[in-house]
């Protein structure tokens, strides 16, 4: 018995030692740096978390090259981390208070910005006095990363909403893109029925149970799911009711085709089963993957909600901003962001054609690259058009519980479409959000 125990101890020590050796040989270079990424003692390297090699990572690499012209020793260490993973990591690091694992700069979804700064104020650095001229970004965009009057983010990609339409399908229905410009949702619905009757195609498509479309309509009227004090305003919200009414009617008429997943939504556009898309400008990337549809698309503004004060033709969905972490080489990170994403037309000129990243930085729009005609969109200079839209987008009050409210409203929409009375469904959504907040 005793001998067996000794044997066990020897065996387990041996395996432990073996595995330690195996690990250290495989990852010696990585474990020596221990993952203490940010706050590098070197003073010329910044670690960055971003998530799309064709888009924001590409933009960061371009910014690195531009900054290196004046700072030859400067390098970036860019880690590819998906947005969901950024959120998981931020939560884990904040709750375990291991702030030294944070990178210097990370990209954050605009809609999640307030939530993270309010819940975990110790993960970010206030960059109000960094020298970044925040007035050169649309007020509606800086609002996402402004908390109590302090700026925490440099806006990066634009989530400005566009109404992208298949001109060839519209033509079959005897319409043009101009018929859809500066109209209201009531007029839009009439035209949508006409397109459906003549071509059999719904104008819009989207994921069932997603509230993206409703929230774009809501923001276009300057309305939101919260008031200025952060209290939910899901009940007695005229703009929300108007948006849901329009949406439910379109689903009922078949002019809005609900699909089950994001992939299916992209398929409706690429396969041409839906005749248009209303979404953030970033959707243009997916649209353009259907090369056979080149020249058959055009972009215009959004329909406005009828009878709602402050209704406009402009909105946003998504978009993201760069945050400087609390573990950063703050001076270097601020100077880097100031000289690139908030100060270099050269940067935006390079990343627009190569990655389709549309700037939020307004001076970028003056550049010739933005006004170039886009062959895919029938020669329309869509990017300078989008920047004009961007300046008009009303601010959206997201707050700490934006995602809870969005989920609650999504659930309510599904119920309303299935026949539940709108007021009681919205009351239930409001109750759920209030419960989550307490």
């Amino acid at each position, binding site marked *: 018995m005793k001998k067996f125990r000794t044997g066990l101890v020897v065996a387990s020590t041996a*395996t432990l030692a073996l595995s330690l050796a195996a*690990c250290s040989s495989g990852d010696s270079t990585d474990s020596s740096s221990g993952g203490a990424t940010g706050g590098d003692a070197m003073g010329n390297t910044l670690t960055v978390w971003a998530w799309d090699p064709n888009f924001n990572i590409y933009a960061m690499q371009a910014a690195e090259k531009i900054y290196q012209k004046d700072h030859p020793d400067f390098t970036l260490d860019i880690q590819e981390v998906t947005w969901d993973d950024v959120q998981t*990591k931020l939560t884990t690091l904040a*709750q375990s208070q291991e702030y030294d694992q944070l990178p210097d700069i990370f990209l954050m979804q605009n809609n999640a910005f307030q939530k993270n700064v309010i819940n975990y104020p110790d993960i970010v650095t206030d960059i109000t006095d960094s020298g970044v001229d925040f007035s050169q970004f649309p007020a509606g965009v800086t609002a996402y990363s402004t908390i109590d009057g302090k700026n925490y983010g440099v806006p990066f990609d634009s989530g400005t909403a566009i109404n992208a339409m298949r001109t060839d399908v519209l033509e079959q229905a005897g319409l043009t893109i101009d018929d859809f410009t500066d109209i209201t949702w009531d007029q839009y619905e009439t035209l949508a029925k006409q397109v459906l009757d003549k071509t059999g195609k719904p104008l819009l498509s989207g994921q069932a149970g997603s509230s993206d479309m409703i929230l774009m309509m809501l923001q276009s009227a300057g309305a939101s799911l919260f008031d200025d004090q952060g209290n939910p305003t899901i009940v007695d919200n005229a703009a929300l009711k108007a948006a849901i009414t329009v949406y439910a009617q379109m689903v009922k008429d078949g002019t809005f085709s609900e699909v089950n997943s994001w992939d299916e939504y992209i398929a409706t556009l690429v*396969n041409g089963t839906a005749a248009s898309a209303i979404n953030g400008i970033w*959707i243009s990337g997916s649209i353009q993957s259907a090369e056979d549809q080149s020249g058959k698309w055009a972009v215009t503004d959004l329909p406005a909600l009828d009878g709602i004060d402050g209704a406009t033709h402009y909105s946003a969905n998504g978009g993201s901003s760069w945050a400087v972490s609390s573990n950063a080489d703050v001076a270097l990170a601020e100077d880097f962001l100031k000289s690139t994403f908030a100060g270099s037309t050269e940067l935006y000129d390079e990343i627009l054609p190569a990655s389709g990243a549309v700037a939020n930085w307004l001076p970028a729009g003056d550049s010739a690259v933005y006004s170039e005609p886009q062959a895919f969109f029938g020669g329309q200079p869509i990017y300078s058009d989008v920047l004009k839209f961007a300046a008009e987008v009303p601010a959206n009050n997201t707050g700490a519980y934006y995602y809870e409210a969005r989920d609650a409203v999504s659930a309510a929409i599904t119920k309303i479409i299935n026949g539940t009375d709108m007021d009681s469904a919205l009351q239930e959504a409001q109750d759920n959000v209030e419960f989550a907040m307490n």
Partner: protein
Amino acid sequence: MTRTLREVPKYVYLTLVALVSVAPLYFMAVSATNSTQDVLASRMWPGSHLLENWQTLTSQQDVGAAMYHSTVNAVLTTVLALVVSSIAGYGFEVYHSPNKDRLMWVLMLAMMIPFAATMIPLFQLFADFGMVNSSFAVVLPVIATPLLILMFRQSARSFPHEIIEAARMDGLREFSIFWRMFVPTMRPTYAAAAVITFMAAWNNFLWPKVILVKSTVQTMPMLISNFSAGYVIDYGALMLAVLIASLPTIVIFFVLQRSFVAGFTGVVK
């Protein structure tokens, strides 16, 4: 003849079920050779975009490194888990005592704690040891799983006690009894446990995602997740990545398939 005829509905049914089960795998394999547009249009026959997809995938992601890290993590987990859990399961059964039974109960209860609840303290622990980004941090929390211990304990139960007594009388040491009598007899149980552990380790996502901060040490599931997170997804290349990631588990399963079934149905008759 009538007997063969009677079998027909059975075979038709089984063929249908087999087709339904294989269809997603077939679609995955075929889509790896198709362009995004073809994948979205659910094209069901092979295309000519395999090379293009491979180039897209490898230009954006270091597939070799991810496969290497996945393999190291999964093999290390499997080997250590089999050693630790089989010794534990054997010990619980052979050196039986009421206190050990109570300990077993605690282990079973631990099975019910969701991983998300222990994730943050675990991260804190490994960060304090400076083990963020190391394979060891990925492997260590999953090498002693209640499920495996229970499995080995069950198989040790069917291992005749008389053999152990006889071996002891012949002067074999306790460790040798385990090593030279138990382990060879229980080979199918080990095979079944290896398949389960390897698959779980290979597909493990949440914990590696949290503890592996650097992209350079990412595993295949993390690579796939990264690849599908962009604004514009290349579905052909994505399917190719999924196909590559599923090959090792498919191979392991087919190699150990026979033992896998025996491991569950019982070894000692």
